[in-house]
């Protein structure tokens, strides 16, 4: 079966369909009540009419050869006990009117009391004809009695029945609709539970769903669990791949660089020495690029499922500055840490933040001239601001906003090894944490000021 509205709510569809069924049943119920009850009311009137006509027929007697009738009082009053209907009667002997209304029509019928409905004196009349044989001086005489009654009482009963049937049908419909609403709610509950159970999970929780599920949901849950298993495997594999790749690229490059340095020292010829220096530079570039590429991959991978924990910004900066101290010392660069007295903590992924800070500081060291200063300053107002101020060449004429794009480098840095990924990584990390990377020129002299802005925890 094709769904007409595949995005429509199942619950609503269920309620609407059950409501329609309830409405149909209510109408059927109403019609059934009317048919049955009105049939019963008509039967009741017919029975009373027949009883009246019979009792009149019984009251016909013969008196010295003459057919006479003493109209029984009860024969007429029994018709008017409940309603105020008009009553007509006619008694015939051998087709001749004996007494009563001689224009009253005779209902036709062969056996038993014959009933008919017709218009008489301006109103609908229900009439019965009862026949009886009477022996008058050994001669059989046919006595026919017709009794008719208007149908006001019947239509009053009918309208009462209709009112009741409408009321019952409406109540039935309302109750059935309310119940179908509850039924739909109830039927949808396992689905809601499942959705909540899946939504409540942490970013790294890829365990199979084990909550008890109804039979109809077992294929869905099975499919979901299979999917999550594959996803989990794929994630583990790519994480492994990144680590593996970093290891496999960096280690041989380091070996090559060490060997090249050793050879460089032994070389005497200046042209060879220069070639080897070019090679070392290329290896450095490759090693750094590989590292940054892997860092970038790691950032992209981890940003999708951020692990948040409370991190002391001061500790983070101190740690990174300590790690890069040797690199800075190679160029006689003095890195100064300016930390506030009170602790500043941010909420975030420790590995990513470390990565970001390392890349920014590494960048600063790389582009700073020999024997200069880099100031690392931590400030906290409404946000946590980590500023890295160098005395390098700055960003020249490059569009500052373009600098964080992937593989984009400043226009004045061709002589320095770089992949253009450092600031991109820092920017991605800042964004993933709801922060930003501000890049400006140093206001207090030459150089640049890069600020990593993060929300406070």
């Amino acid at each position, binding site marked *: 079966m094709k769904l007409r509205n595949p995005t429509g709510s199942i619950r609503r569809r269920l309620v609407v369909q059950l409501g329609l069924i309830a409405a149909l049943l209510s109408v059927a119920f109403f019609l059934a009540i009317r048919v049955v009850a009105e049939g019963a009311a008509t039967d009741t009137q017919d029975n009373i009419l027949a009883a009246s006509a019979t009792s009149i027929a019984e009251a016909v007697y013969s008196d010295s050869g003459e057919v*006479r009738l003493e109209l029984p*009082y009860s*024969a*007429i009053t029994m018709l008017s006990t409940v309603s105020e209907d*008009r009553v007509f009667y006619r008694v015939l002997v051998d087709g001749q009117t004996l*007494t009563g209304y001689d224009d009253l029509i005779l209902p036709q019928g062969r056996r038993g009391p014959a009933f008919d409905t017709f218009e008489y*004196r301006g109103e609908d009349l229900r009439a019965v004809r009862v026949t009886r044989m009477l022996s008058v001086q050994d001669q059989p005489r046919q006595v026919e009695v017709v009794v008719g009654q208007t149908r006001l009482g019947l239509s009053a009963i009918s309208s009462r029945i209709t009112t009741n049937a409408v009321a019952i049908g409406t109540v039935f419909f309302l109750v059935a609709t309310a119940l179908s609403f509850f039924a739909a709610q109830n039927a949808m509950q396992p689905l809601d539970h499942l959705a909540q159970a899946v939504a409540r999970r942490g970013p790294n929780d890829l365990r199979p769903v084990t909550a008890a599920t109804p039979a109809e949901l077992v294929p869905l849950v099975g499919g979901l669990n299979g999917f999550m298993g594959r996803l989990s495997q794929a994630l583990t594999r790519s994480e492994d791949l990144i680590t593996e790749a970093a290891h496999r690229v960096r280690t041989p490059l380091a070996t090559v660089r060490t060997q090249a340095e050793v050879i460089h020292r032994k070389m005497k010829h200046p042209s060879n020495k220069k070639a080897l220096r070019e090679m070392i530079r290329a290896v450095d570039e490759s090693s750094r690029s590989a590292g940054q590429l892997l860092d970038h991959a790691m950032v992209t991978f981890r940003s999708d499922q951020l692990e948040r924990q409370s991190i002391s910004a001061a500790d983070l900066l101190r740690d990174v500055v300590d790690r890069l101290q040797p690199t800075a010392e190679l160029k006689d660069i003095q890195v100064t840490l300016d930390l506030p007295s009170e602790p500043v903590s941010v909420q975030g992924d420790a590995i990513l933040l470390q990565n970001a800070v390392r890349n920014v500081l590494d960048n600063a060291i790389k582009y700073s001239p020999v024997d200069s200063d880099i100031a690392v300053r931590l400030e906290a107002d409404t946000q946590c601001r980590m500023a890295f101020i160098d005395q390098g060449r700055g960003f020249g004429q490059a569009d500052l906003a373009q600098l964080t794009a992937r593989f984009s480098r400043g226009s004045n840095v061709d002589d320095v090894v770089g992949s253009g990924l450092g600031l991109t990584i820092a920017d991605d990390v800042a964004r993933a944490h709801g922060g930003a990377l501000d890049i400006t020129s140093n206001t207090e002299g030459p150089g640049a000021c890069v600020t990593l802005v993060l929300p406070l925890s």
Partner: protein
Amino acid sequence: MRHFGFAALLSLLTVSANALELEESRSYPAEAAASELRILSTADVEIFEPIILAFQSENPGVAIQYDVASSAQVMRGLYEEGAEYDLALSSAMDLQIKLANDGLAQSYSSPITERLPDWATWHDQVFAFTQEPTVLVISKAAFQNTPVPHSRSALIELLRTRPETFDGKVGTYDVRVSGAGYLFATQDSRNSENFWQLTEVMGRLNARLYCCSGQMIRDVADGTLAVAYNVLGSYAQSQLADNPGIEIVEMDDYVSVMLRSAVIPVTARSVADSGAMIDFLASLSTRPDLAAQTGLPPVEKLRPDEAPERRPIRLGPGLLVFLDKMRRETFLRSWTSSMEQR
């Protein structure tokens, strides 16, 4: 009542113009008459006049033509001759029911008629506005040394044991000529096992037969009769002041209560006025002064414990039974043979 002379002149014209046999006719013109209400009634002008005047003072735009005829004439006029009237007021309940049942009446309904007791309306076409009990009227003089009977069996006993006192001095309706008398007699025959016995006893005492309550009461008053049976209580009550010699006795076993009723004939033209008059009559119980003036006891809801012996004659098709020509024939035959044993 300045306009009576004029009214009398008018009435003469009306009588001659009508095919009906009217006993009396009177016009009540209105100063700014917007419509005319023509009433055909069995109640005498003197009795009904206060009601007409009170109605006109509330409805000044309605001129009223009030014609009086016997109940049989009322029936004949409306049933057979198609006489044009806006309202038929009659004490002949059976004939009023026959008019309605046979489709010669119009329906009417108002908040006032809705408030009438169930037994006082039928089919929204017949509206009772008085409840008049039938009573025994006795001559005080004749009962000086005789205990007054309070039930039919006591009356039978008395008549039986004192034939010399009551011979020729008992009066009742001639049911062959009086519609009301026939109604009371047939209801008696349904209500009491003593009825035929009482008829026989009265027949043996050479009972005098009357067409109307009025004459019976006068005859009791002047000593011609010692007892009159089945007299309309309302008439007797109104005659009581003029005839101190009579006494009204309500029976203990049961009292047939006749309902005077109003019907709007199909020939009616000013139906709105007819409805207004029906409402006025149906609310007669709220005007005790009028009720006292006319001597017509208005319809009131009876509490069951109040007067259990009072039985309002039931409005409904049951009344048609005794109108059946064969049933009437049989009844009159029995009644005549009981009453005339000569």
